[in-house]
């Protein structure tokens, strides 16, 4: 699988703790809980430099995020789509007879920052700078997911985030996906559960909510 084939979109909004990306294709967002990454150079090559100074490319910092929200809306905020399928037999027929729809809608997803990779090492804390706008966003390949989920050190960042979506849903979706790449999925989920139990020691209700969603 080449790098391009996993490219799913571009960053259109960015902050330290999360970023929003627009998908290149309608409805082709990575699923809830997937691990995505952006890649950008640590040195800002686009800004002008003082006279005589030569800019060399710095290290590439890859930022990891977990998809917590996916939304498909009209490209113009004030203009809502209208129902078109009254005379069509199937949903697919609507898109076929009005090909412009795909251009009038867009799919975006939000990802919460859970770590980054620098010098080839996965670091489970926030990078110095958020990704730049138009950074490409890739969906991580299974090997990378397995590598990233080799440690549960990202869980504190995830569980402590304040998001519009219930965090228990996001965390359990992420763990379910990661468990598929683990050697022993059942073992992986138990270990993850133990990590969560330590994290949510004082909040048995939340712990139960996550555990209920990840058990097989």
């Amino acid at each position, binding site marked *: 699988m080449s790098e391009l084939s996993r490219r799913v979109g571009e960053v259109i909004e960015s902050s330290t703790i999360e970023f929003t990306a627009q998908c290149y294709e309608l409805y082709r967002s990575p699923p809830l809980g997937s691990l995505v990454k952006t890649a950008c150079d640590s040195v800002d090559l686009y800004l002008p430099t003082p006279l005589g100074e030569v800019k060399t490319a710095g290290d590439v910092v890859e930022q990891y995020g977990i998809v917590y929200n996916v939304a498909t809306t009209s490209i113009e905020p004030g203009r809502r789509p209208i129902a078109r399928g009254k005379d069509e037999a199937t949903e697919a027929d609507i898109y076929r007879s009005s090909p412009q729809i795909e251009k009038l809608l867009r799919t975006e997803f939000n990802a919460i920052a859970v770590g980054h990779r620098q010098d080839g090492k996965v670091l489970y804390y926030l990078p110095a700078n958020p990704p730049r706008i138009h950074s490409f966003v890739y969906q991580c390949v299974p090997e990378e997911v397995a590598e990233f989920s080799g440690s549960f050190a990202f869980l504190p960042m995830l569980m402590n985030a304040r998001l519009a979506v219930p965090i228990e849903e996001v965390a359990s979706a992420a763990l379910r996906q990661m468990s598929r790449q683990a050697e022993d999925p059942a073992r992986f989920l*138990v270990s993850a*559960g*133990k990590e969560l*139990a330590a994290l949510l*020691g*004082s909040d048995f209700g939340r712990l*139960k909510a996550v*555990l209920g969603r990840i*058990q097989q």
Partner: protein
Amino acid sequence: MSEKTHRLGMVVSGSLTKGLEVRLDGATSIEEMAVGRYVTITGGKRSFFGMVTDISLGVTDERIILSPPAPADRFTAEVLSGTGTFGTLHVLPMLTIGGDTGDLIEGPQPVKTVPAHFAEVRLASQQDMELVFGGEDANMFYIGTPLDMETRICLDLPELVKRSNGIFGKSGTGKTFLTRVLLIGMLQKSKAVSLVFDMASEYGWEGSSESKHGKVKGLKQLFPANVAVVTLDEESSKRRKVSADFVVKIGYDEIEPEDIALLRQTLNLTDIGVEGVYQLSRKFGRTWVQKTLEINPDELPEGLNIHESSLQNIQRGLATIQRLPFLVPRSTDNVVQRILEYLDRGINVVLEFGRYTDITAYILVANLLSRRIYDQYRAKTEKAIAEDSPPPHPLVITIEEAHRFLNPATSSQTIFGIIAREMRKYNVTLLIIDQRPSGIDEEVMSQLGTKITCLLDNEKDIDAVLAGVSGRNELKSVLAKLESKQQALIFGHAVPMPVVVKTREYGSAASYNEFASSSPAGPKKAGKDIEELWG
């Protein structure tokens, strides 16, 4: 400590006096833990050695108990085990190993601090146990194995016999077997000789066993050259086909007023009666028993200030003693001298009582002989000190039913009370065997060097045995959980820390062979070599 054992968990809190709380890892099964087990705690600079004294369950959030996972929900239960719910061990730290160079040479030291937070706790490995309890050698005698381990727990017997010791336990918990094993150990490794007052005739020759073996061999059968059996009851010995070395007869003239005073309770003597005994002995000298019995109460001899009824009281008491068949008006044989000759030659003496298991006979004979042997020992030791010659062999006197001699009322009068208190000054110590330690004078109990106790379940007895021991509350729970057979808690002078042992087997052919093979000449102790090297 190259051998790594299974990690159990880590220290989370505690104190030196109250012990440490160890939180178990999720992977450690709490069901595999047991009180009395040993653990090593790896601190920053040194290792700590401790004993598990309690095991409990904990939760991080009370709500887990209020809404526990459904029985079918194995996943949640598995996740919670070791995280939300966890096991804790209560560990009593006892020794430190390693640390600075001084410690390395001197071996395990008593604990004076606790390990830091989160120090790793592991089950003690065989090597750790050997480091603490030593391997078998010329001085170390294998007494048993710790729970669930193969390591041999050894007692430093030359050290052991320097003080008086006690073996306690309820009836039927294996005191007699333990005593046999210990007597063999002393015979082989301590250079001390034993004098055993064998009330039930079970140490010298064959004794009975509750197990399948039926009969077990006595000391004389295993070590004929080193043990002499003497008997009070020739007939019984013959019936049991015991080859007794000689028969003990005691003359009336050997009985002293102190012996009678000790028997006050069993002979039903009044206070005034006991006073009278002293008067009578002063008046008549050595033949006082005979002469007192001959007095006609109506014709009191001159110079005696004894009331008629008191005299009758004394006469009744003496008549009881007189009925004992081993007492003769005048003994031609000097029993004490003969026993001492054996002891001087390094031969252990077992005195069988045969049919005279009556406590009166036991107290009378044990006290009478011990006092005179002790006097001789005292004289010899003093002479040896004066002449700078080697002192006599250390002597260990084994007595059963010790609370009869050493109860608070009589312990000050009996020779055993004196031996227990004055201890090793004159090279004589006691091995006390008793099932009712609470009946023994506290002062005597506190002087015992090493205590070996089998199961006790009476609260008073447990308190009496553990009085003055550090960590006694913790040891209490260990003592009360001992199995009713073949298990004993050893603590005191001869072991570096309290230890629960499964007593070494005694009674099978293999066990006899093993005893015979562990000859006294073993490899020299490293410590001794170092001493010789460096002077």
